């Protein structure tokens, strides 16, 4: 990670279309704003939910959203806000789910750790570290059997690389050359434990390559570098090249949860990471490069701001699910449950 602020890839290479650049900026700004708002509500005790901020990961999420098609599937984690916004889940349905309200994507029954929206290929979100990888492998088998070039992406943190399910999912995907894109969001923390305290082998991409798949490390603060790595990977996977592992180097810009202490973070490390804050850097760069005008970016920001405000107003105001939902969707047939009571 270099220390230049405002740094975004300048090296030559393919570039997203202007529409994609604008959408990426929209995703980044929306995510940043919604994230801050959710943290604020959580700290105020108004949002009674475990909320896991995504600050620092906005560039990767935005780039992922730009390279995936709606039919492509995404499996995410508890730290999912950027992923779900990028994949196109409507903001109101997201926020209503954070509040556990009837208009949430999952009718308020899943909550913030389990955001899911089949309509846009946001297939599953797990709260158990690493458990998404075998599920993604299974979706990869399904996609491979379907034979239509669908890609399955799965996001997870650096800490997830320690767990058994990670290993099993990686080996299975490599073995069968499944169309799975493994996205390691390396924010250098596993809850409150720094990377160096949980592994002697911090080069995740290198370790991933040893399973027999393509693997690369990417600057995850840089939306263009992220977009390039992701679109290359998706193309390779779509054309049958088997799984790809990308490690995105970022930093967790906030505490582990919306309410957690973060005083233990080394101040200089955090300050350095803050200079790479994805959305403001991207804005500057887009203007500097003459790709998107400041006015257009202002408009996107305003749109995002009001969308976030509206979504939170909506989410907090909607009712909670009716009690008859308690035994609905335990099984396909509700009657079976009633027999067991």
């Amino acid at each position: 990670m270099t220390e230049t602020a405002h740094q975004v890839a300048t090296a030559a290479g393919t570039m997203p279309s202007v529409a994609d650049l604008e959408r990426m900026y929209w995703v980044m700004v929306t995510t940043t704003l919604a994230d801050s708002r959710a943290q604020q509500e959580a700290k105020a005790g108004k949002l009674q939910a475990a909320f896991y901020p995504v600050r620092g990961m906005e560039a990767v999420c935005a780039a992922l959203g730009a390279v995936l098609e709606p039919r492509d599937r995404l499996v995410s984690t508890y730290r999912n806000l950027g992923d779900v916004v990028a994949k196109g889940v409507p903001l109101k349905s997201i926020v209503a789910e954070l509040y556990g309200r009837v208009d949430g994507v999952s009718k308020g029954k899943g909550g913030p750790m389990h955001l899911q929206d089949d309509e846009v290929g946001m297939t599953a979100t797990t709260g158990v570290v690493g458990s998404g990888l075998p599920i993604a492998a299974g979706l990869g088998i399904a996609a491979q059997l379907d034979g239509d070039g669908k890609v399955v992406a799965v996001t997870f943190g650096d800490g997830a690389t320690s767990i058994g399910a990670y290993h099993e999912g990686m080996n299975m995907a490599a073995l069968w050359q499944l169309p799975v894109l493994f996205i390691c969001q390396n924010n250098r923390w596993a809850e409150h434990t720094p990377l160096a305290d949980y592994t002697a082998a911090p080069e995740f991409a290198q370790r991933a390559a040893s399973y027999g798949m393509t693997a690369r490390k990417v600057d995850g603060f840089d939306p263009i570098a992220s977009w390039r790595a992701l679109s290359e990977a998706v193309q390779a996977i779509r054309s049958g090249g088997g799984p790809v592992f990308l490690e995105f180097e970022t930093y967790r810009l906030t505490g582990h949860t919306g309410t957690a202490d973060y005083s233990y973070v080394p101040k200089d490390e955090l300050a350095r990471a803050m200079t790479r804050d994805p959305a403001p850097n991207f804005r500057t760069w887009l203007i500097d490069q003459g790709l998107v005008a400041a006015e257009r970016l202002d408009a996107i920001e305003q749109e995002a701001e009001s969308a976030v405000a509206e979504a939170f107003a909506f989410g907090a105001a909607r009712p909670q699910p009716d009690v008859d939902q308690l035994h609905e969707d335990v099984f396909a047939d509700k009657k079976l449950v009633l027999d067991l009571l």
Partner: protein
Amino acid sequence: MTTLQTATAVETEKMSAAVAMNSALDLAMAKDDKVVLLGEDIADPIGGVFKVTKGLSTKYGKGRVRATPIAEQSIVGAAVGLALGGYRPVAEIMFCDFLTLASDQLVNHAAKLRYMSGGQSSVPLTVRTVVGNSRFGAQHAQSLEAWFMHTPGIKVVMASTPTEAKGLLTSCVFDDDPCLFIEHIHLEYTNKEEVPTGEVTIPLGTAAIKRPGSDVTVITYGPAVPWSLQAAETLAEEGISVEVIDLRTLVPLDLETVLESVGRTRRAVVAHEATQFCGPGAELAARITEELFGELEAPVTRVGATYAPIPFAKSLRAIPDADDLVDAVRRITGQ
């Protein structure tokens, strides 16, 4: 009650449970190309260590019949993914004891995804597994059905005959909810019977009265059914008429059949090979008592495995048998 529904009840063949389940999977795969199998060693030539998948990889290809790495979490996890991706995976976990390795995927994901997604997800997977016995020692002998009965969102099925194994497995495969189908190593090859060669389905949640009787109801399932019937035979000679109910599915549970029977006999024993303490029999005993309190002549009695890991030596018998059941029935009938 219908104990068996056959699409074409004509042709039959003598089959062991393993062969009958093989036939169930074969027919399911032929009928619906969304049915896919995965598990350790399930591909030919070996066709599964219990031979239940024999011939299927040759017939349907290694894309639909996948011999996996030794990795139970990813076997069940991949089944969850396949199910979310529109398939009907049937995963084999070689021994029930290894469900411990896959229980995160079964319990936290398969069983909860429909609910947590507000009904968006169906997870139509089947996990087949086998309960071993002490020939392998304590890590290959546990009956863990109680764990999954206690887990809302997953169905639990155990068959006791080849025909029912075929019919129940077929129902699991085409069920839209996750199903755990537990086989028993003793039932896999012994007890051949005439089984329809065509499709057989038995609705989940229907118990079968395997022997009618009037003095005591024995409620049982899976490997305990044969020895419960044997005990009933012995007791008949003593003049005690025992009704034997084979639950066949533990979730959903056909309590109606159970209560109807115990309402008549007014005495019940629950018999199973799982550990008795905090086991399936506890739920049945509690439930029967709640519903029929005033009508019972004796407390519902349980016959299950004793509180100990399963010992290897045969002289140490942790798992009950017909004699234990005979004793229990004699006790509650005051003989």
